[in-house]
């Protein structure tokens, strides 16, 4: 058997490497657990259907404003279907108004203007109005709303 003088040194090195490695993994896992603990849970959001209107209640070209709790929401009946927009202006959070004669949304704070599809056509808003996913079931119009649970925690 060839006697390699490097072997004991390498063995010692590997042993140290393994031990330090295991130690570092243990420490890493410990701190990873701590991180998971304080990082708020990113649970997959669940949605449920929420009734916003009956089909015949909003004529084409008109919008109906309802309140989703405290959030104002607009149900617009366009020729190609229903769209439901959040009434919160995407600029700095004021509540927009629906101007029927002009078929558009108008924000009084900084004069942001959106067309009837929520697209920005004037003023400072950086992006279109937030939309809810719409589903029409028989003669009822639903949107998908985030399922939240009651309680003091987020």
């Amino acid at each position, binding site marked *: 058997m060839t006697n390699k003088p490097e072997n004991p040194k390498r063995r010692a090195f590997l042993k140290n490497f393994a031990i330090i490695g295991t130690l570092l993994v243990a420490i890493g896992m410990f701190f990873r*657990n*701590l991180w*998971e*603990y304080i990082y708020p849970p990113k649970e997959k959001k669940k949605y449920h259907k929420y009734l916003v209107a009956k089909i015949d209640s909003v004529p084409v070209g008109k919008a109906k404003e309802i309140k989703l709790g405290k959030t104002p929401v607009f149900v617009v009946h366009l020729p190609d279907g229903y769209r439901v927009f959040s009434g919160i202006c995407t600029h700095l959070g004021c509540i927009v108004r629906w101007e029927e004669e002009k078929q558009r949304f108008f924000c009084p704070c900084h004069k942001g203007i959106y067309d009837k599809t929520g697209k920005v056509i004037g003023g400072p808003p950086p992006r279109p109005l937030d939309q809810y996913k719409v589903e029409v079931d028989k003669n009822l119009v639903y949107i998908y709303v985030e399922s939240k649970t009651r309680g*003091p*925690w987020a």
Partner: protein
Amino acid sequence: MNFKDWFKERFPIDYDKFVEINERIFIKEPIPVHMKKWWYCMGATPLILFALQGLTGIFLAFYFVPSPEMAFESVRHITQDVRFGFWIRGLHRWGANLMILSLLLHITRVFFTRAYQRPREFNWIIGVVLFGLSLTFSFTGYSLTYNQLSYWAATVGTNLIKSVPLIGHELLYLLRGGEEVTANTLTRFYMLHVWFLPLFLVFFLILHIIVLRLHGVSEPEGFPKGKYFPFYPHHFYKIIIATLFLLALMSSLTIILPPGLGTPADPTVTPFHIKPEWYFYPTYRFLQLVPLKVGIYVTGAFLIAFTFWPFIEPLLSKKNEVRRKISWGVGALTLIITLGLTIWESLV
């Protein structure tokens, strides 16, 4: 100008001296050979546990809310909803128990090896203060969960303060933040637990370690004198092993014996069986055996004797042999009585 010089210009300290001091403390410090035995590491163990308690405590404080309405609910939230919450809480709870346990072992070890002897008397007294602070930590800590047991234990415990002569009632008022245990009590206990006690403990801890290092670790009888080994790597490794072991132990205990929630505190209903935590059993049992005044005075006398024993012992005899026998006798008696009372209380 290179970086080192740029740095030295702005932080003009003597770097060589700085490195030398650190080396001396953490690497080269000569430790007597007896410290290779685990029985003598009962001092490091509470230190490690205290650090872990601090760490887990800080993390618990991310979710704990110290109001009567939310205290129990926030503890429940941590235990049941928050990811790893049950583990952090378990570490904290078991850490507290293990800390008291290891402190008791440390005190026993120090006492029976008579390491409190001249010139180390004051370190003993500092140690007693540290022990008292740790007990206060535990008491304030488990009152924060605000379940039935903790609420009523806090009520009974703070009631005892009233028995301190002269200033008892004022102390009670101050501690409770009023006549009764209320929201004020909870917030005061919280402030004690996360602010004042840690501050005091750290201060006395640093003092304890400095004084210890200044004198050098005392060498007990039965070991070859004058033989030392450097702090690093041996003792350093010991501390790492101890930390790993304690973490594994506390995590396992959390899984096998998880800390429960109990029922939320109800100020109108006292449960049938309220007991303090196990480390208060001796006092609890003793105070039920004798009239209150007797109990207070005897406990007080014992505490004074306990605190100042390093100064009392030499007064009892001039001969070392005799002193050793007396100390061991007194120590054994204290151990037996304390253990006996603890076991008795746990059976009742």
